[in-house]
């Protein structure tokens, strides 16, 4: 899922870096004090999750966990994934510093998408919540593969063929990631439901705070 250095062209690198910068700025603005530790721990999970490999064909694929980060953190996925990828580049030589922008956008944009599409479902009954979480994990990887194919296409390779190969290679990850996200969300809902109902609670908090002030 990480693009190595020296593969994509300069315009793609720049475009990715700009989009990531914008996303990170929005994410940092929306990241409030209480969520900093949650973001850090999810980033740590992202950082370590990439070591869990599923050998498929010539390319190794691994857990990405952008879906889990997305449904919980929303826009804060950008700074979280940016930091995680930076750490992976430095410690594991995954991807690279130059391609950090493109890689971050490819993984964080689907995370934000799944936040907007699936987040409302997470407040529902347990069954619907589990399905929504599974879909979040699945589609975040799916979309990330599509974005990855797109960035390679903008450089030289044919889109449909590349996308086909990438989606095929990541299909097992999509399914596994769906389950990982589902179990994580169900687990969090049991031990700490407020982490998932955050948006609603923060609105209430804001109202009550403004009233007391």
């Amino acid at each position, binding site marked *: 899922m990480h693009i190595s250095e020296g593969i994509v062209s300069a315009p793609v690198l720049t475009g990715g870096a700009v989009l990531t910068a914008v996303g990170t700025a929005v994410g940092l603005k929306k990241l409030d004090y209480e969520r*900093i530790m949650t973001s850090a721990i999810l980033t740590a999970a992202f950082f370590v*999750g990439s070591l*869990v490999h599923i050998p498929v064909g*010539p*390319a*190794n694929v691994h857990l990405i966990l952008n879906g889990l980060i997305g449904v919980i953190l929303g826009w804060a996925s950008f700074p979280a994934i940016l930091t995680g990828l930076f750490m992976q580049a430095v410690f*594991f030589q995954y991807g690279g510093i130059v391609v950090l922008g493109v890689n971050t956008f490819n993984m964080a944009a689907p995370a934000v998408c799944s936040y907007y599409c699936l987040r409302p479902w997470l407040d529902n009954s347990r069954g619907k919540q589990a399905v929504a979480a599974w879909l979040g994990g699945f589609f975040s990887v799916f979309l990330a593969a599509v974005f990855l194919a797109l960035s*390679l296409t903008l450089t030289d390779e044919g889109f449909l063929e590349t996308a086909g190969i*990438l989606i095929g290679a990541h299909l097992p990850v999509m399914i596994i990631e769906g389950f990982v996200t589902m179990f994580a969300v169900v687990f969090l809902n049991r031990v*700490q439901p407020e982490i998932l109902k955050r948006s609603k609670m923060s609105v209430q908090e804001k109202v009550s705070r403004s009233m007391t002030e």
Partner: protein
Amino acid sequence: MRQTVNGLSLCLIFFFLLELDVQAHGVRVFAWSAGETIKVEAAFRGSGPARKAKITVQEAESGHELVSGLTDSKGLFQFPVPPQAIREKMDLKITADCGPGHKGKWLLKAADYLEMSAHSPPLPAATGGEQEKEVDGGGKEAAGPEIDEHLIRTIVAEELDKKLAPLKKLLHESLRPKIDSRDVIGGIGWLLGLAGIAAWIKNKKKE
């Protein structure tokens, strides 16, 4: 909040347990010369060999393709040194392509393989025959010194190759950056530290 942290830490421990199967996926290419052939090994950073990776051998300067092929199940690929490369003393750029987004390369300098193969080409014909003659004829003095020198060179080169093979292998294993649990723990430490700094800054702003 504390419960959340506990829960997520549990998830992290779970990943640590899974971390046993550590394989990364930057592609590392290593090529070395073994007599008249050049051997290429492609592996993913970490431990896994890159199977069925497409290897392309090009002239480093012009990018002209000389040889291409797929790696075997051990991530190995070998090819005879192209005569053209020996003639023109080309530096070889060897690229391994393991699917979209995964590439690695290695530059094999002309000097690295020419030394080995320079003595080799004339030898198979010369040595094979001469060796038998030596055995049969008991060593005729007239043709002696020059042939002997060739013969000795080949034998020494071959033996050295055999002796050095494990050393080369060891060297190139050590070039393989392994992912250490130290890196993992260090990285997590960094993340928690960054979170602490972020919390501190946000808290200052609040005040």
